[in-house]
């Protein structure tokens, strides 16, 4: 019994320490992000490459998913609203659910599956190959040169791709609502504009930036935990990705709480 309690306590302590370490690391990165001395041509080159790998290479798949999911979701939502006699809320559902919740969530899932795992494996491989030691020997700061561009690219990618996803879904919504529900373009745009709230868009922006930050920072941290052995690479990717999904869930819940608090008090 005592052993079991000790085990729970140890696991709890470990989880708290790990959470604290993640936050400390996040603050170190954030502080460096606003330090202009951290940026030079080498860092800018990595940033441009990372934006290309994260945001541009994924575009064909991303646009296909946006059109496909957009059509399905708008079709289902519209049908249910007509069935319930609540079609007047169509615009609100599009803005409140598709734009502020669905678009960031699908975007973050796609980027996490593709880029977070790649970043985690890349950092772990660099650690195993002693390439991080090379940077240390030549006095190249790993936070500035390796981590900062990847994290900035994560933030920019999630924010911009979420907006792109929303735009594609809303445009496909325009087409499908005309085809399925005989809704004119004027009615569709009016419904959307009437439901658009500036505070929702700001919350969405902050949520996307936060998710972009953590879905790259967490894999970096777990990549750094790799040892000198090749077998530690899959283990670090596994732990990193599990923690990325936990972080996504936590940020989703926190953003929902923040939105409900804003609606309550403002």
């Amino acid at each position: 019994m005592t052993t079991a309690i000790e085990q729970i306590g140890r696991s709890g302590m470990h989880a708290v320490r790990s959470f604290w370490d993640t936050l400390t690391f996040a603050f170190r990165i954030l502080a460096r992000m606003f330090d202009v001395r951290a940026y030079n041509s080498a860092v800018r080159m990595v940033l441009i490459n990372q934006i290309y790998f994260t945001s541009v290479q994924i575009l064909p798949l991303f646009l296909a998913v946006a059109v496909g999911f957009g059509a399905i979701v708008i079709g289902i939502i519209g049908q249910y609203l007509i069935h319930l006699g609540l079609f007047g809320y169509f615009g609100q559902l599009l803005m409140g659910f598709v734009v502020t919740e669905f678009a960031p969530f699908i975007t973050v899932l796609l980027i996490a599956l593709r880029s977070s795992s790649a970043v985690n494996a890349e950092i772990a491989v660099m650690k195993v190959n002693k390439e991080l030691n090379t940077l240390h020997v030549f006095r190249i700061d790993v936070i500035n040169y390796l981590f900062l561009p990847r994290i900035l690219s994560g933030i920019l990618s999630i924010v911009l791709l979420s907006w792109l996803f929303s735009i594609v879904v809303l445009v496909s919504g325009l087409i499908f609502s005309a085809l399925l529900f005989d809704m004119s373009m004027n009615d569709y745009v009016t419904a959307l504009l009437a439901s658009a709230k500036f505070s929702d868009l700001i919350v969405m922006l902050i949520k996307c930036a936060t998710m972009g930050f953590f879905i790259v920072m967490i894999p970096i941290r777990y990549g750094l935990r790799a040892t000198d052995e090749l077998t530690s690479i899959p283990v670090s990717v596994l732990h990193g990705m599990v923690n990325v999904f936990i972080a996504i869930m936590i940020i989703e819940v926190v953003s929902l709480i923040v939105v409900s608090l804003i609606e309550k008090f403002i």
Partner: protein
Amino acid sequence: MRLYSSEELLDRELCDIMAQEKHRLGLVSLDAPLISNLSVLSNIALIKQYHGRLSVREAEDIAKVRLKKLHLEDIAMKRNPVLLEVQRFCVMVLRAVMVEDAMVVIDRPFKIMPDLDDTRFIRDVLTSVDDLFQECHIFDYLWNEERYAGGMIHGA
């Protein structure tokens, strides 16, 4: 040239010199490999880009001139895994001499190029770039002394 009778002793001396001269250290060692997701050109240019705050083009122009010195222009866009051992060594030396007022430290060269019989190749490479560094130290084991019998260039 510094020869040591044990790995422990060599590692300790190497750590000391790395700590003392970290601001002008240009290390050539398997413990400081080339960055595998960068081309040879980018690996060499990186030092000037980062410390010299040069643009990508300026730093790569310098790197191209230095690759030409060792007749290695054709491997500029290749990456570490496909390089031959001697090419890898040359690129590591070129990267080391990109450090300002470089003190080149070559750690166990015969570990980087196990097929080499003597130091002639190392000597030729260092002679080709001897205007680009201030001093050079080679760390190796005592049992490799015979391979250094031909002597090394001044300062090495």
